[in-house]
Structures are given as C-alpha cells and as structure tokens.
C-alpha cells in the first residue's frame, strides 16, 4: 500500500535557524515527487518537482533533495515569511494524481 509520512508535524524555528523537513514514502514506480507550500486558508502553491534519486532543486532559501525512500526540504536561514505548511506529494504510476502527506507546519519566529 502506498504511504507517505511527513515529519515533524510542526516545527518552530528562530529566524536564521536552518533546518530540514522530511518526507518518507513508499510508492512503487515513483513518477515524481512534488513539494508545495500552503498558507492558512489558501490553496497549495507549487514549489518543486523531483524525478530521480540524487536530484536537487533550489529556490531562494529552500532546497529539495530526493532519495529512493525519502525527500528532504532544507530551509537555510529562514525568515518569518517562510512560515507555512509544507506538503510533499509522491506521484503514483499510471495515475494522474498526487498522493499527499499531511504536511509540516513551519513557524519562523522573528
């Protein structure tokens, strides 16, 4: 059975304190892994797609990496505006849909 687990559920960081969010998955024949950011009361906003183990992508203070079993979202020197829930979503083969984790709620304190 396909599974995706994100940890931690919630994370509080001081501004400038770097950390990583984890997304562990069990999906046979992974087509891709997507990261989204979601602000309260809004729809998810696309960040990255990773397609193969070893791939990395960066955007401002965020860097996403992928292995065969998990993905990490590294946040370097975060700012309060990085506060949001971060969702990962492996894409299952043969299905044009994403399989979402429950997210990590990040709070960055000034």
């Amino acid at each position, binding site marked *: 059975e396909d599974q995706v687990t994100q940890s931690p559920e919630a994370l509080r960081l001081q501004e400038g304190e770097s950390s990583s969010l984890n997304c562990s998955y069990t999906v046979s024949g992974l087509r891709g892994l*997507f990261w989204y950011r979601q602000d309260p*009361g809004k*729809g*998810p906003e696309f960040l990255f*797609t990773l397609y193969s183990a070893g791939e990395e992508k960066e955007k401002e203070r965020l860097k996403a990496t992928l292995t065969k079993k998990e993905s990490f979202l590294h946040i370097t020197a975060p700012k309060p505006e990085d506060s949001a829930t971060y*969702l990962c979503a492996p894409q299952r083969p043969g299905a*044009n849909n*994403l399989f979402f984790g*429950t997210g990590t709620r990040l709070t960055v304190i000034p």
Partner: protein
Amino acid sequence: DVKVTQSSRYLVKRTGEKVFLECVQDMDHENMFWYRQDPGLGLRLIYFSYDVKMKEKGDIPEGYSVSREKKERFSLILESASTNQTSMYLCASSARTGTDTQYFGPGTRLTVL
C-alpha cells in the same frame, strides 16, 4: 501565470441540500481535479477529469459527483449534503503532457449544518 478560480471562498449549507462547487482554469489544461482537505488527513482526491465529459473516481468519491461540460470548467456536486462533508475543497488543474504539475485554486470552505 496559471489561474484557477473557485466560485466561493466560504459556503454554508443545510443537511440534505444539493451543493454545487465550481472551478474554472484559464490555461487550457486537459486535467482537472477535486480534493478535500481535512486536519490530520491531508488532501484526498475525490474525482478527476482528463478530458471534457470524462471523469474518474479518486480515493473518496462516495457522496459526490462531478460534471465537465467545457474544458475550462469542472464542477463538484454534493447531491445531498451531510455534516461529514464539512471540509475545505480544493480544485486543481494540470496539462496532460509535460511536468504534470498541478496548480490549485484558493479553496472553498464548506460548512454543512
């Protein structure tokens, strides 16, 4: 920029009412999706459509139906709303080819009393 719009941000309905949630995308995307999002459960796929008049059930289709008469519009229908359908409903769209990236609308917070 891709734009996905949903007809209402907030909606309050009574048990037993028929409810229509509308979604429109302006990027000529073939695929459209309806999810619901609940605390602790994440986003779960209700239905998706890969072409006009075509639809497939997602993980939780019970109690819902959909309609796609035009490429840009995808409707979610609750035939007889129940309190356990109180949730945030999110629509998304993606192109058939390429990166498969799904772009989401702002969501509709539905409360069924």
